[in-house]
């Protein structure tokens, strides 16, 4: 027997997903996370897999894992004490950032304190120009002096970030050598090695975040490797990345900046996989956890990618699956604001103390409490019986709000859901306008603990025609890691016109990046299967300040012909923005090389559809759409392929509850996905 096992660690639970390599059958397990002892939950979960599903550690042929150690160190500010060396006269790069304040309407708005404060920032005498030429040679003494001052202030590591290092890395590299020689115990990080992008604040911020968490992540991964080996897991562990791919845990030790957003990315990859398998071409994924809802646009099984994301308080520039995070999750707290209006979020009861219904000390009403009080979550337990729900506590938490509004508890609970959904409507509307898509052409794919509870309501609000709920929505992120490909991205700044005379440079740059990528996947990652190389250029019209990604046509590159590349750029510009200017000169700002190593993906298990109507388990008395009503209650395991079920209804399963409000008809497809179809979709 051999199993592929994927693990995703969230705020409350660690999810385990095991796929039988022979049958494709999926088994899932959840354990509580152990934030005080990172890694223990992994060992706990593998124990549970063995105990409950009979999967021994030695049966595990493939193991992927998403770690939150890095992102937690960052958010809780528990990284190492770091110093930053910049070009002299530019030491305030982190203080000034890009100037704009988080809330420009608030006269007291302030930027968060940088990870490296000015007493640990030191200027080094050196200067390169924009072409990479040396204006002022690197002054060895100023490097030594800075290091001595940094060490005197307790620095454990140093980030080197010099102006124009993306163009010419020599000064950073030389300074790193000087430091390695003089202070061998110091961690040293060069900005050009972390991510050689133009824009000094963004490059420095990315390098600082990396340096801040790297020693922590590295020692965690080392300990995990050892622990897995200790219990008999033979497969070399892989880790999930923000770009939706995976890499070996060994490589992860020095590339931790690439893993910080891996949790949400893996969820989207899982959703993309489900969408592709069941043939849903246009999908909006909705992943609702305890504190937030993450939505992503997926077309033809592919999510979008971007490189400007925020982690904690700071921007990070690494290729990342595009996700929009909305501050509303199952634990979001409802309250009456100063005007007496009902508000939901952004404060959250999170996983500690959690919703009042969890009975762990939470007293404020949350979205989850609203569902419980409406009678819509009736299983009595969530998360494989690990959390017992207490409806009385939920009602008690809502009662003060009900009193303030002069409504019944049920009406107030419904109001909480309505306000939360309208807030999601607002954010999804923005996302769609930003991308120029009409969401009514999309299916809503719901997962995470809270997605299946809210999806029906949100789909109605957005005028969407279909909701898809996969068989194990609570562990889709774990599945996402399991089905991910080995993937890495390499970048080089170009910054020249797209013109015949620059085609030689462009081709040489692509070749160089391809060689680096090949070395990574073959020599470092030791990937044995097929690898695909995709060159993409970040292009713009001259004078614009933002770039769009355009795949580079290999034949045109070979022939030195800029024509097809320009045509592709104009077409992409037109697709995104509704206009293009075929006469305007085009600049190539950067070239990216994406290498993916295909791994055999487990096909989702499917079974023959026996079309039939399934009678509900029983009736459930709920408050829904403004009235007390009896609706159908199902257990998910009764809803196998081909089943048609009554709506409105509640479907209970181990990892979540699916709530289907009035207005849908329900069936189960060949993969076991619940397909909820709007009876009267909104007209365009």
């Amino acid at each position: 027997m051999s199993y592929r096992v994927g693990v995703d660690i969230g705020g409350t639970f660690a999810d385990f997903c095991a796929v039988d390599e022979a049958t494709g059958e999926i088994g899932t397990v959840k354990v509580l996370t152990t934030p005080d002892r990172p890694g223990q939950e992994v060992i706990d979960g593998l124990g549970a897999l063995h105990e409950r599903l009979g999967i021994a550690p030695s049966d595990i042929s493939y193991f992927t894992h998403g770690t939150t150690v890095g992102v937690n160190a960052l958010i809780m500010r528990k990284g190492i004490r770091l110093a930053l060396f910049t070009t002299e006269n530019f030491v305030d790069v982190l203080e000034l950032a890009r100037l704009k304040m988080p809330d420009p309407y608030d006269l007291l708005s302030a930027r968060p304190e940088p990870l490296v404060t000015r007493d640990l920032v030191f200027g080094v005498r050196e200067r390169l120009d924009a072409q990479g030429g040396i204006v002022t040679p690197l002054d060895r003494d100023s490097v030594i002096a800075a290091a001595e001052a940094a060490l005197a202030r307790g620095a454990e590591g140093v980030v080197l970030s010099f102006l124009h290092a993306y163009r010419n890395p020599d000064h950073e590299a030389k300074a790193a050598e000087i430091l390695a020689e003089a202070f061998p115990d110091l961690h040293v990080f060069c900005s050009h090695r972390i991510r050689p992008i133009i824009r000094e604040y963004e490059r420095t911020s990315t390098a600082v975040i990396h340096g801040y968490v790297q020693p922590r992540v590295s020692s965690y991964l080392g300990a995990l490797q050892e622990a897995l080996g200790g219990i008999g897991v033979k497969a070399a562990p892989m880790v999930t990345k923000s770009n939706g791919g995976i890499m070996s845990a060994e490589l992860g030790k020095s590339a931790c900046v690439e893993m910080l957003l891996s949790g949400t990315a893996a969820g989207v990859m899982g959703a993309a996989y489900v969408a592709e398998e069941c043939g849903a071409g246009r999908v909006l994924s909705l992943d609702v956890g305890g504190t937030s809802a993450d939505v992503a646009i997926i077309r033809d099984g592919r999510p979008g990618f971007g490189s400007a994301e925020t982690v904690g308080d700071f921007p990070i520039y690494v290729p990342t699956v595009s996700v929009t995070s909305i501050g509303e999750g199952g634990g979001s707290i409802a309250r009456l604001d100063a005007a007496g209006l009902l508000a939901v979020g952004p404060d959250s009861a999170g996983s500690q103390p959690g919703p009042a219904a969890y009975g762990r000390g939470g007293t404020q009403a949350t979205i989850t409490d609203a569902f419980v009080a409406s009678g819509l979550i009736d299983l009595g337990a969530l998360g494989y019986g690990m959390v017992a729900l207490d409806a009385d506590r939920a009602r008690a938490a809502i009662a003060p709000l009900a009193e303030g509004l002069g409504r019944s508890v049920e009406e107030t609970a419904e109001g909480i859901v309505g306000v939360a959904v309208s807030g999601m409507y607002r954010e999804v509307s923005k996302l769609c306008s930003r991308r120029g898509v009409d969401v009514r052409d999309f299916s809503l794919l719901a997962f995470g603990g809270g997605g299946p509870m809210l999806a029906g309501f949100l789909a109605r609000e957005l005028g969407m025609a279909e909701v898809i709920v996969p068989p194990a929505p609570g562990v889709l992120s774990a599945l996402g890691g399991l089905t991910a490909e080995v993937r890495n991205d390499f970048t080089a700044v170009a910054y020249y016109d797209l013109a015949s005379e620059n085609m030689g440079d462009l081709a040489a740059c692509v070749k160089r990046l391809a060689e680096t990528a090949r070395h990574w996947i073959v020599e470092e990652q030791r990937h044995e299967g097929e690898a695909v190389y995709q060159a993409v250029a970040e292009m713009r019209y001259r004078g614009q300040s933002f770039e769009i990604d355009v795949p580079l046509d290999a034949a045109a590159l070979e022939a030195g012909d800029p024509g097809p590349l320009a045509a592709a750029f104009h077409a992409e510009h037109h697709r995104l923005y509704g206009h293009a200017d075929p006469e305007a000169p085009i600049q190539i700002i950067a070239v990216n090389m994406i290498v993916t190593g295909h791994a055999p993906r487990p096909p989702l298990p499917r079974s023959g559809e026996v079309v039939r109507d399934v009678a509900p388990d029983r009736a459930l008395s709920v408050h829904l759409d403004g009235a007390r009503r009896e609706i159908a209650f199902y257990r998910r395991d009764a809803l196998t392929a081909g089943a048609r079920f009554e709506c409105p209804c509640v479907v209970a399963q181990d990892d979540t509850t699916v709530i289907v409000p009035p207005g849908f008809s329900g069936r189960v497809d060949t993969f076991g996905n619940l397909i909820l179809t709007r009876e009267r979709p909104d007209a365009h």
Partner: protein
Amino acid sequence: MRTDPVTLRVLENHAQAVAESMAYTLFRTAHSTFVKETEDFTTGLTTPAGMTFASPRDLGATWFIGLDYAGVIGAIEDYEEGDICVTNDPYSGYVCTHTPDMHIWKPIFWEGRIVAFAVGHIHNTDMGGAVPASLSRANTEVHQEGIRFRPTKLVSRGVMNEQLLETMLLNVRMPEQNRGDLNAQIAAVNTGEAKMHEMIAKFGVEVVEAGIEDLLDTGEARSRDVLSRLPDGEYRFVDYLDEDAPGGVPVRLELALRIRGDGAELDFTGSDPQLQSALNMPTGGNSRHILLMVGWNYCLYTLDPSIPLNGGLLRPAECIVPEGSVLNPVHPAAVGMRSLTCGRLQGVLMGAFHAAAPDRLPVGAAGGGGIVNVKTFDIATGRMAMASIDPVVGGAGGSARGDGTDGSGANSGFLKNTPVEINEVEVPIRIRRYGLVQDSGGAGLARGGLATELELEIFAPDTVVTARNRDRTVFAAWGGQGGGAGAPSTFTKIAPDGIRTDLGNTDVVRLEPGEIINLTSGGGAGWGFAHERDAVLVARDVARGAVSIEEASLRYGVVLEPDGRIDLNATDHQREKMARTARMSPPSTYTYNAGRMAFEAIWTDANYAALSTALARVPVPWRHYVKRRVFAHVAQLSERQRSGDGRDVEAAIALAVAAMPQLAEHLPEYAPSRDAAE
């Protein structure tokens, strides 16, 4: 309220979704880099009468919350479905505030009735006129500021007025950009209409209409609630622009803020007359004009960030703005650079409100550096290179809540900079220094935010550096509750031979190869007594380079060892001395810098009041001229000759009237008496 508190919140989210979808549509489809970079645009929804009830929160300009479109909506006779109207005339309805801002509005019909308007504006890079980009402080008439369109139907029942469009495009310098940006605006209002229709279909027209009114009423109620928690009283505050035209004399902006219960009167009487430069703010005397109210919105929101940002916020206010003043000019005064005046006026409101809530609002923000642009020749490409380098704005003022933010913040918090690396790739210049200025923040219990410094070296002849909105070399940010004023801003040219030239408030400089300019903004002011600041924080400021070891001792009374440790005995001793000195002088709400105190020693309140009173009676076109004559006369007086009680000015006016007898009928009491003449 007609709407229950749950439904109203849901409606608010939907209305915001409409306004924000409009903003993202505009942003996505806009052509010009200017729009993408500066986000100088708005979108929104108004009532049928024109009051804005929804504006985007995270995209677009921050100045126009509660903009009232009534003035332009009423200028169109009748509306039909599919109409789209535009105007960029600052004198037609007082919605547009300078010519580059193209405002657009589209009626949203439901069953034959207008239920709302989808509105917005874009700042176009150029609208034609005397100078590229249409804006120059030196302009004296609005006619120099580009082609203007009265409120007009650009689209009638879905049909574009091509002739109008052609006329516009013929008169501007970058027609394809204007055309592209106009298309983005049209896409935005069309999105607004479609999404508003969706909303009405979902909730019903009566519910939506009642909800709109209730949203505005809620904004008003919350705003009144914030005001009613402030003590009643009259809070007077004055600040100045350094120059009323290139190389000119100061401009006084004066406000008496009268808080009465849950309402307020803002009386701007005493502010300078209309100017012969582009610093005028066209408000039409509208008692809640948005340019007068930007600081109001900032202050109320800061006092309570949970208040909804919509037009209801403005309702408790009533402004008094005399006609023919810099805050209410009459046609054809130039208005292009109203942003400099408006920025300072925001500070004036912040000053007046500070006195009403000294423990909840900050003291003066820095400002003054300017928004730096470079135009130079790139020998490598053979092209002219032009780029917006950076806004150099400086830090926020301190407050009871903590230090002012360094390098930006307060009412400049919406601006973004350009990376040094991008600037150097785009333009053949070298940035020699970009960072914060030590000791530039006003000392205080809460330190003022530090100034920003930018130093550039030029490599090509005939390079032009502009620094729009340069100011604050004379009048620096004001401190409060014992806190010190911020540092003034500076602008210096350094020649290859090292000779330094002070450029003051110059905003256009022509430079040669090898020349360097160094520009610093002002610093933010301090709040509370510096000697009461936690010595540990002072030591931290020294370790972080924000304060020098000398200033720590001199201004904060914190004596530090060379290794940064606090010398407790010396510190106690010094701080005791400072506390004694502070106890001897009467407590004052505000602290001013030396430049302001020197100016006000001559231009006392009495002298300025005498000037303002007299000028208010002089015909508008004469006012700036007479002001300059009076200033010139007063400048000649020796200290011994000055009285400061108004007579200095009266004498000067009498001389002016004697020289220009046409004035006598307006100022009869200044006319030379017959006896004297004989």
